[in-house]
């Protein structure tokens, strides 16, 4: 892939990225969420088409319009969510969607071929088993077999180990090795750094849509160097901020425990910390280590199984979202399209979605339409939201302006506590700067800000203290001025300070 560029409205997903995969090689594609890994791969399998740039397969320039095209070229992808039919057998799933089958497929022959393939690559799978009776690891093997059956030479795996147990991960490593021995190659997307070290030959790092490093794995000294490559050290811009003078404790979290439905490893494990007025408390960690569940517990969206949440001195454990909102908590949620806005409602309506309950915008349940319009106009101006009018549906705005709409609503309503989850994810530089400046402004005016981010650079720039979460636990809480990406990166990988 040479010089690939792809833009989505408001987001530059890939910026002149080139990628080379050699025969028999495993390439690890590393980067934070929103760095452009999946977009790049989706272009390789024809789900998206690049705006510019060229794709060569085995030295020949190709125009890949669809997954059928890429499959014909021997390229197949295993997505994070498996594409299997739960109540059909392994063999049926493997042939599902194949075009050149006779009307009545010769199942005996097909099963023989599947068994042969699975023996060759060490993929233990029984063709007659029903998918929903299989473990996640087994289902993944079916997905791999599906691609091998269709003659794939290049396999793309999107975070293949995210769902696997350590034992299953080791098996997957073995399978990959066997496939390489057969002359196949693989790209795998991940943000787990230790896997990169053990699985891959080459590492390529994407950051904010750009390729920032390509290096043979053996030349990388340790996980720490990898972490630096991923989070980067370049400061985009510097931000003015007042002195750090924390006030009383606004958020107190004590021994918080959340268990998954149906048992298993706790999602939150004895989480304890507090956030004071006039400070930004950052939470670092690789996505999926409990950060989002922690914020949803504080905002009342999820129930906890133990511990307590004290907000502004009041016990708010397992209270309803409305009680917590009325207690003065503003929330910039992780998924802005699904949780932050109602896409089919207007900018003005979205801006008033917190304040409509107050006397300012409604009286005895009747909405004050005129006031609401004025209120929305003010916020649009104050937060420089770019929209044709306040009557435009939010879904027609760019990602950055949708986030500004949420920011405006939540900051305007903020009564002492602001919880921001991945607030600059996927935004361009301008919008990112606006988000960060607003967080600092809240801190300076005395709010307690809880900021969850994957970007260490952002946390180091914005936060006063940083906690690192790993597998539902808080590894450590550090002074942002006295730490750096190396220390944080190690903690994010689950290595405690004493072990470093």
């Amino acid at each position, binding site marked *: 892939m040479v010089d690939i560029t792809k833009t989505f409205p408001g987001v530059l997903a890939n910026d002149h990225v080139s990628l080379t995969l050699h025969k028999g090689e495993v390439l690890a594609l590393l980067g934070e969420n929103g760095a452009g890994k999946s977009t790049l791969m989706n272009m390789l399998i024809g789900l998206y088409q690049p705006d510019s740039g060229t794709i060569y397969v085995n030295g020949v320039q190709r125009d890949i319009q669809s997954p059928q095209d890429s499959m014909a070229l021997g390229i197949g992808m295993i997505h994070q969510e498996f594409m299997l039919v739960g109540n059909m057998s392994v063999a049926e799933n493997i042939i599902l969607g194949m075009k050149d089958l006779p009307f009545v497929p010769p199942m005996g022959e097909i099963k023989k071929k599947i068994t042969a393939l699975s023996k060759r690559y060490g993929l233990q799978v029984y063709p007659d088993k029903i998918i929903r009776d299989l473990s996640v690891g087994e289902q993944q093997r079916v997905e791999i077999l599906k691609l091998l059956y269709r003659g794939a030479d290049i396999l793309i795996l999107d975070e293949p180990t995210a769902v696997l147990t350590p034992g299953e991960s080791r098996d997957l490593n073995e399978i990959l090795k066997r496939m390489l021995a057969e002359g196949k190659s693989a790209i795998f997307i991940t943000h787990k750094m230790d896997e990169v070290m053990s699985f891959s030959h080459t590492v390529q790092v994407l950051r904010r849509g750009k390729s920032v490093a390509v290096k043979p794995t053996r030349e990388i000294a340790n996980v720490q160097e990898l972490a630096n490559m991923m989070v980067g050290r370049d400061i985009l811009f510097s931000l003015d901020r007042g002195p750090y003078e924390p006030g009383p404790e606004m958020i107190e979290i004590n021994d918080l425990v959340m268990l998954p439905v149906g048992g298993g490893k706790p999602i939150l494990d004895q989480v304890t910390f507090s956030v004071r007025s006039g400070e930004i408390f950052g939470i670092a960690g690789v996505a999926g280590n409990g950060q989002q569940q922690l914020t949803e517990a504080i905002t009342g969206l999820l129930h906890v199984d133990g511990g307590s949440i004290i907000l502004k001195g009041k016990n708010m454990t397992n209270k309803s979202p409305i009680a917590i909102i009325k207690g003065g908590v503003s*929330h910039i949620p992780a998924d802005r399209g*699904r949780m932050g*806005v109602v896409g089919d409602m207007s900018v003005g309506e979205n801006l008033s*979605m917190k304040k409509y309950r107050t006397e300012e915008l*409604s009286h005895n349940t009747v909405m004050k339409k005129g006031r609401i319009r004025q209120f929305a106009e003010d916020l649009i101006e104050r937060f420089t939201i770019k929209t*044709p009018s306040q009557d435009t549906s939010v879904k027609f705005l760019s990602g950055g302006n949708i986030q500004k709409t949420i920011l405006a609503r939540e900051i305007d309503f903020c009564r002492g506590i602001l919880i921001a989850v991945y607030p600059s994810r996927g935004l361009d530089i301008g919008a990112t700067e606006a988000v960060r400046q607003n967080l600092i402004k809240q801190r300076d005016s005395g709010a307690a800000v809880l900021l969850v981010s994957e970007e260490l650079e952002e946390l180091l720039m914005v936060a006063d203290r940083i906690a690192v979460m790993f597998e539902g636990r808080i590894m450590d809480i550090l002074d942002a001025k006295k730490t750096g990406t190396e220390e944080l990166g190690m903690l994010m990988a689950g290595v405690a300070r004493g072990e470093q």
Partner: protein
Amino acid sequence: MRIHLQKRDSRSTLMTILVPVASLLVSFLLGAIVLALSKADPLVTYRAMLRGAFGSQTKLQYTIAKSIPLLLCGLAVGVAFRLKFWNIGAEGQYIAGVIGITWVMQFWTFLPVALLLPVGMVVGVACGALWAAIPGVLKAQWSVDETLTTLMMNYIIIGYAEYLYINAWKAPRGNMGTILYPEAAWLPRIWGRVHAGLYFALALVVVLYFVLYKTRWGFELNMIGKNRRAAQCQGVCIKRNIILGMLLSGAIAGLAGVIDSAAVTHQLTKGVNAGYGFTGIIIAWMSNLNPFVSILVALIMAALETGSDALQILKLPSAMGEVMQGLILIPLLAGSVFTEYRLAKSGTHTEATA
């Protein structure tokens, strides 16, 4: 050159008006084809239908009277649809209303006759609300799919109503139907066939419009319908609102049944499942859930029903009207794509940006 659909930068107001009107015309065109296939002259047939629906004062009165339960059912379904709660059980909730008022009229004889109508109406409306609340609670508490529960509950209550008018509540004379309500407890007529139910229906349009568009609760229903998860993040209680929304939806459908039986049939009898609840779905959809537009749509639907009676003179089945009703929905659903998309030629992205 290839033509493809391109997303609009904003919803087109022109199209939101044009699409329903055009769909109506297209459905008449489709109807004409069906008519021509049945060897009938479409123009003659349509003229006969028009005359059948509006041709004389009596016919106009019939059409208006028919539009009253249709309008109410459309409003009922519209409230639930606003929440994206697919209530296709207005038919059953309507029947629950009829059963409720009939129960009062027939058995609450201890009441003075003057009180029978108001009490019967309240009980009937409550029956409709409660019947609708069952799938509401099932959905809110255990996420049971409402399309199935509301649909199936129709058949339960249709069967129960049948049992009542054939067996348990049957009048001594005749082979089906309950005894007629006392005449003093009938809902009065105001103009020929048109009865006082019209006042209720029109008043409800105004009240609903106010509640849905001007109040905090209406705003919350809208949020839930358009993005449940975001509404939850904003502190809106989903479960409570689903149940409240269904209580209101069922109450309105119940009111439709109460009014039609108190003003027209005066008893619970065969034909209580006249399909108003199902036609209400079309009305809600065509009016884009707007109560005022529902008035017009309900009138069109009623005209199709009364007008199709005239078809029998032309030796066509009166079911032709139902065919027309069904045909209206298809172009409407297909046409709604134009409010959010425009047609563009391939490779002409630039000219499309507004």
